[in-house]
């Protein structure tokens, strides 16, 4: 497919948009993994939402 004399600009804009969207997706996923890991660590310590008044052990 021929994009004409300015193909570079078109590819660059689509490429940069793709990168930005990928970065957003990566941010969302990494953030989710981080929070879930933190929740899991806390749950391992015996602290979770389900049992609010139970301390350690």
């Amino acid at each position, binding site marked *: 497919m021929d994009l*004409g004399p300015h*193909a570079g600009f078109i590819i660059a*804009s689509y490429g940069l948009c793709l990168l930005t*969207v990928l970065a957003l997706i990566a*941010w969302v996923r990494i953030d*989710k993994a981080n929070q879930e890991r933190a929740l899991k660590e806390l749950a391992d310590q015996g602290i979770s939402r389900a049992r609010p008044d139970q301390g350690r052990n």
Partner: protein
Amino acid sequence: MAFWDYANPTRFLKLVQVLLPWLVGLCVATFAIGLYMAFFTAPEDYQQGDTIRIMYIHVPSAWLCMMCYTVMSISSIGTLVWKHPLADVSAKSAAPIGAAFTFMALVTGSLWGKPMWGTYWEWDARMTSVLVLLIMYLGLMALWRTMDDPIKAGKAAAVLTLVGALNLPIIKFSVDWWNTLHQPASVVRLDGPTIHSSQLWPLLVMALAFTLLFFVLHLMAMRNEVLRRRVRALRMRAASVSRPATASASAQPAE
């Protein structure tokens, strides 16, 4: 009312769980159709040639960065008036997405401008006010990051968001006026040429795809934010558990 039922964070998480796969599928499909149309069915522009294809991502991202700010403004009203926790979560998690869409609008606009106008950047009214919008987004993100207490940060950011919502139209008009003093309307305007339906359809499909993308990302980011606050609350509890631990440690004096 269904809305208020889902305003509870736990119910909200469940709703996201159900809704998200469908939204993601729909978003991907719309993008596939939109991109196909943008590259294969849409004709070249008689004036701009193939560079018109940049429009199919430029215009939707420009629309979306405005819509995202609207979402944030409504959420800010929710934070200030109803003091609803999810409103604050919604505003906070929309900001980075809005910034990314604004960035995309600026970059694609500038890459479109170079072959058309011969320069990457022009202090033209529209571009300038979008740049100001980007600074607003980034400033809001910085404000949220700087304040520890999410409640306080949410209120401060809500005030700034609403003031910005008032200010942005003013910027738009004043910049328009400022700009026309120096530059006659020689600039090719986006809204100048009437758009043909063979170009309009791909544009609308792409706009729909971008809107879906926004909602997918926003829901995911909101879920992360709810989880983050949960972690925060649990960590506070984890730290405060120490009281009995101290007593037991002092029963056997340190060696």
